[in-house]
C-alpha cells in the first residue's frame, strides 16, 4: 500500500528489548532507519520495555504534536493491551495529553500484509524447494497464557493456505505447546520442510532454542553465533530436507508493515467514513 508521508508527525516504534542480548533490539532500530530513509515521518523513534529509552521517557524524545505509536510485536495481548497503554498512558485508539495527540495502532504481527512477508521469507530460504513437495511451518512460542499469540499465527497459516502459494501443507507449531515444533518430522509428510519463526527479533528462541528443538544444534550452552545457525541451510535430518529462516521480524520489509498499520489506523479511525 503506498504511504502518504506525514512530515508533521512522529512515529514511535515500541519494542521489548533485553538486558542480556543487544540483538533483540536490532530489528527495531533497523526498521526505524528504513522508515527514516523512506521519509515517511518527520521523526522516527524507538522505545522499549527492557531497554532505554523506556516508554515513560519516550515523550521527551518527541517534538511533533501528533504521534503514531506502533507496537513492533507479533500479537495482541499482555504487552499491547496492558503494558504499553499503561506506560504511555493511552486510553484508547487516540489519546490527547499534554499538548500531544497519540494514535495507537495494532501490532505489526496481526496485519494481513505479514502474509506476503512470510511467503517471501520462505521462498528466500528455500529457493529450490518445490512448494508442492514442501511443508511450511510458522513457529511461535505458545505458553497457554496468551491465546492471542497462537491466534496471530493460526490466522497467518489460514491466509497462507488460501494465498495460492501452493505449499503441500502449512502448519502452525509452538515451542511449548502442541503441536510442538520438536515433532516437525512426524507432523510433516513431505520431503521438504521450511521453518519460519514468527518472532520480531533473533533472540535466544530463534537462534538457540528452536534449532535445538529441530535437532540440528546440540543442547544450549555454547550458543552458535546467530549467523552460523542461518547459514547452514539445508539440513538433512530424519530423511527430510529442512530449511530454517531467521525470525520474520528481522525482514527489512517489516518497515512497510509498520507503515501499513499506520494507514489502516487512519482509514479506520481518522478518515471521514
Amino acid at each position: 500500500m503506498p504511504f502518504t508521508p506525514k512530515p508533521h508527525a512522529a512515529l514511535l516504534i515500541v519494542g521489548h528489548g533485553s538486558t542480556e542480548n543487544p540483538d533483540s533490539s536490532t530489528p527495531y532500530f533497523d526498521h526505524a532507519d528504513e522508515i527514516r530513509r523512506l521519509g515517511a515521518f518527520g521523526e522516527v523513534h524507538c522505545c522499549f520495555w527492557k531497554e532505554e529509552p523506556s516508554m515513560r521517557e519516550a515523550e521527551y524524545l518527541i517534538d511533533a504534536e501528533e504521534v503514531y505509536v506502533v507496537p513492533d510485536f507479533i500479537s495482541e495481548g499482555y504487552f499491547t493491551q496492558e503494558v504499553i497503554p499503561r506506560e504511555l498512558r493511552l486510553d484508547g485508539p487516540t489519546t490527547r495529553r499534554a499538548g500531544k495527540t497519540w494514535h495507537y495502532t495494532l501490532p505489526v504481527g496481526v496485519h494481513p500484509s505479514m502474509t506476503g512477508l512470510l511467503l517471501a521469507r520462505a521462498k528466500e530460504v528455500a529457493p529450490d524447494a518445490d512448494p508442492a513437495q514442501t511443508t511450511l511451518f510458522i513457529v511461535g512460542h505458545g505458553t497457554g497464557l496468551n491465546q492471542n499469540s497462537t491466534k496471530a499465527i493460526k490466522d497467518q497459516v489460514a491466509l497462507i493456505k488460501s494465498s495460492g502459494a501452493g505449499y503441500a501443507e502449512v502448519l502452525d507449531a509452538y515451542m511449548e505447546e502442541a503441536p510442538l515444533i520438536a515433532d516437525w518430522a512426524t507432523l510433516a509428510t513431505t520431503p521438504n520442510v521450511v521453518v519460519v519463526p514468527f518472532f520480531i527479533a533473533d533472540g535466544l528462541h530463534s537462534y538457540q532454542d528452536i534449532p535445538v528443538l529441530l535437532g540440528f544444534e546440540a543442547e544450549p550452552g555454547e550458543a552458535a553465533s546467530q549467523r552460523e545457525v542461518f547459514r547452514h541451510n539445508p539440513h538433512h535430518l530424519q530423511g527430510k530436507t529442512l530449511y530454517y529462516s531467521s525470525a520474520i521480524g528481522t525482514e527489512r520489509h517489516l518497515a512497510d508493515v509498520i507503515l501499513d498499520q499506520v494507514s489502516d489506523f487512519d482509514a479506520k479511525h481518522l478518515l471521514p467514513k
Partner: protein
Amino acid sequence: MKLSERLTEAIAGGICQIGQVAILPQAGGAGHVLRHIDDGDTAADLLENHHGPAAARDISTWTEDGRYRFTKAEQSLKRGWQLHLADDAELLQALDLFYPAAVGLWLAQQDGRLEVEHLRDKLNRQTGMYRFARNLSDTGAQALVREVCGPANCCVKKILWQIDADTPLEDSEASRYDGIPGDRDRTRALPLLCREACNHFVAEARKASKAESDAKAEKVES
C-alpha cells in the same frame, strides 16, 4: 523551537559534553564531531572514523572488553573513535543512541516540565515476575541505591527521584552524584538525568526483596 535546534543553541552557548561524549565544534558550521571525553585532544588520525548517527549504536553497545552495555549510562564507553555528523538532526539522533532521551530530559527540566517518578510508584507499577519488587523495605531500597547507582557502580546519572514523595534518599556518593562524569567544567556539560529507576534497578530490587523475605522466614523458623 525543535529539540535539535535547542541542543545546537546550548552547544553554541558552551555545552561540550554529555556523559562520556565530547562534542567538538567544527569550523564554519560544518556539522559536529563526537569523541570519547578522554580522547578530546587525541590526533584525529589515531582515531577510527565513523559517519552518520547509526554508528553511535555500534560504538556504544559493547565495552572495550566485550560486555553488553545494557545500562547506557554505564561509565564504560569505549575510546578510540570519532563520529562525524552532518547536521543538528543527526547530532540529536546520535546522542539519543549514546544516551537515550538525555537531551530531551534535560531540556524538559530546563522548562520545568520534567515529571519525576519516585521509587515506590515505579515499583508499584511492576507486574508479572517483577511484582515482588514492591515488597522491598525502605532500608533495603536505600541500601540498593548505594549498591546499584552512582559512579562506583558505573552509572553516571543524577538521581532525581526519592523513595516516595516524603522520603528522600539518604546521603551517599550515588545520591549526591551530579550526572557529569570526568573532571570538567560543570557549566559546560549536560547532565544525565535519572527520572525513574531503571530496569536494572528494578531487577535488583526484586532480588533484594526476595532476600529480605527469605531472611524473615528463616528467623521465624529458628
